[in-house]
């Protein structure tokens, strides 16, 4: 098997480490979300839900814990969607020509960029978890050390597949667009509905039916399901809503993410075969 994508990966990671501002901002930004949005919203939800009596017998978690999973998902979404932007800049600055004129198969460009985007998402997810636990998110409560490791791997699996899907999409957009502004516009158009029509920050139970359907097809919802399953448990309540997830439901969520990633890879592959870079 050819390992050409590792060359692309290596180069993108060099850049990630070398652009200090990019590196630091991408690490600090999710922590800031947790610190400001998390603590502020958490305080409000706690005040508003004091009247809602917890259902007995089911572990109750605070809003901060609930939304920490959402912040991991949101950060993964943003990082992945913008992960392909580097290709657009490479294309516009002529750097991509070297790669396009080389014998490297084009799917390796896609894999290389996706792999480096996935690595960044892993790093960010771990930072959010550590910082979240530090400021009071109740992750992995009562888990044995082995269980924590297993759960961590589960979270990374979900984050990884989800990020691949959006990185492929991002790469497909980047290779098809000429201007960063155009790409930025598409991104903004995509992130809004994906982010807000999901269960990342609030329960979807109160959504109107149409929006609930959208949320069910939304990969972000399935990523959040996976993260909450592994980080909090298969049966818990938050802000008065019970979350219980069976293994089957978990596998359905995983399957949705896999299908999404495969479809996006198909899209990226098609766009790259057609791409002319001169």
């Amino acid at each position, binding site marked *: 098997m050819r390992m050409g994508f590792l060359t692309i990966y290596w180069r993108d990671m060099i850049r990630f480490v070398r652009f200090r501002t990019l590196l630091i901002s991408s690490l600090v930004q999710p922590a800031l979300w947790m610190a400001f949005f998390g603590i502020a919203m958490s305080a409000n939800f706690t005040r508003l839900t004091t009247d809602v009596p917890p259902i007995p017998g089911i572990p109750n978690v605070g809003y901060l814990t609930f939304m920490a999973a959402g912040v991991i998902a949101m950060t993964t979404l943003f990082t992945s969607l913008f992960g392909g932007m580097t290709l657009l800049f490479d294309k516009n600055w002529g750097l991509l020509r070297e790669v396009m004129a080389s*014998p490297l198969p084009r799917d390796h460009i896609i894999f290389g960029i996706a792999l480096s985007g996935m690595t960044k998402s892993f790093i960010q997810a771990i930072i959010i978890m550590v910082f979240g636990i530090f400021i009071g998110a109740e992750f992995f409560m009562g888990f044995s050390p082995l269980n924590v490791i297993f759960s961590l791997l589960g979270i990374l699996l979900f984050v990884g597949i989800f990020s691949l899907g959006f990185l492929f999409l991002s790469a497909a957009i980047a290779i098809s667009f000429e201007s960063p502004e155009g790409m930025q516009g598409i991104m903004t158009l995509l992130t809004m509905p994906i982010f807000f029509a999901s269960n990342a920050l609030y329960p979807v139970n109160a959504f109107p039916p149409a929006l609930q359907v959208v949320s069910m097809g939304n990969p972000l919802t399935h990523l959040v399901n996976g993260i909450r399953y592994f980080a909090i448990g298969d049966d818990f309540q938050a802000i008065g809503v019970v979350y219980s997830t069976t293994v089957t439901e978990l596998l359905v969520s995983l399957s949705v993410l896999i299908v999404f990633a495969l479809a996006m890879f198909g899209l990226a592959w098609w766009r790259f075969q057609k791409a002319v870079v001169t």
Partner: protein
Amino acid sequence: MAEPIIVVSNLAHRYGDFEAVKGISFSVDRGEIFSFLGPNGAGKSTAINILTTLLHIQQGSASVAGFDVATEPAKVRESIGIVFQDVTLDRDMTCWEILEFHGSLYRMPHKERRARIEELLELVELEGKRNTLTKHLSGGMKRRLEIARGLMTRPKVLFLDEPTIGLDPQTRRRMWDYIKSVNEEGTTIFLTTHYMDEADQLSNRVSIIDHGQIIATGAAWDLKNMLGEDLIYLETSDNDAAGKLLQKMPEVTGIQERPHGFYAQVNQDGTHILPKIMDDLRIAGIRIQTVNLKKPSMDDVFVHFTGRDMRDDGAEHPSSMHAKTGRR
């Protein structure tokens, strides 16, 4: 008979309605330096992009190093090196990383790659800049690094698209030396340029390309000789009569009219024939206002074949053409 390494026949390419390349045919022999000389927008870059497989071939056929660009692009890619027109170096990578990245892209084995990097850094005299980010290099250093990169995989053909654009005269000369030494080691070089002197000094053969067509091909020396031994520029009180008179002289092989005067191409050393010309004109009662004598340059060759000065970039300004050629 040298064996061709690039063979192109009836190559045509259009962008929408615009015909950038209009059915060109040529071949490049193994081991030579071959130039495409022409103004910006003549179709040089389009041709080079097709030969390097960056653009899909629309019409005609082309093969490089024995492989067809349409059916075996991967093989072509493995056989060539490219130095693009604009700098295509990642600003935030070091010289060493640039070469390492390129070598890995082409799947060079680790050991060979590392050895080749050292060899090339030495060739282009950048050993001391090994760990310098490319954004801190001078224009000439960047170009040298790009040439080193183009040579990383020991290509059979090295494509150079405007290799010395934007460099100062001394750096250009050194670039030419590098290019020649690379060629002497056996690499065939295909270069495009809009600099007359570059095509003249560097290449074994030149194709003059204009408006997507090849207008003339030959050794620079042969092309210049087609214009005769010397060119004599004259402005007289009656250019028409003077021209007719000179055309009858056996030493004069051609007359090129200019707005205020004309060039006479002569097949002998102009310093000897000029006094005779001046005598004949005076006897005929034609007053000479300006005289100039020069060896034909590639500029003259270009003007001769295209009917205009290349630096006019497509627009025809006869007066400025006169001013530029007359001053030499």
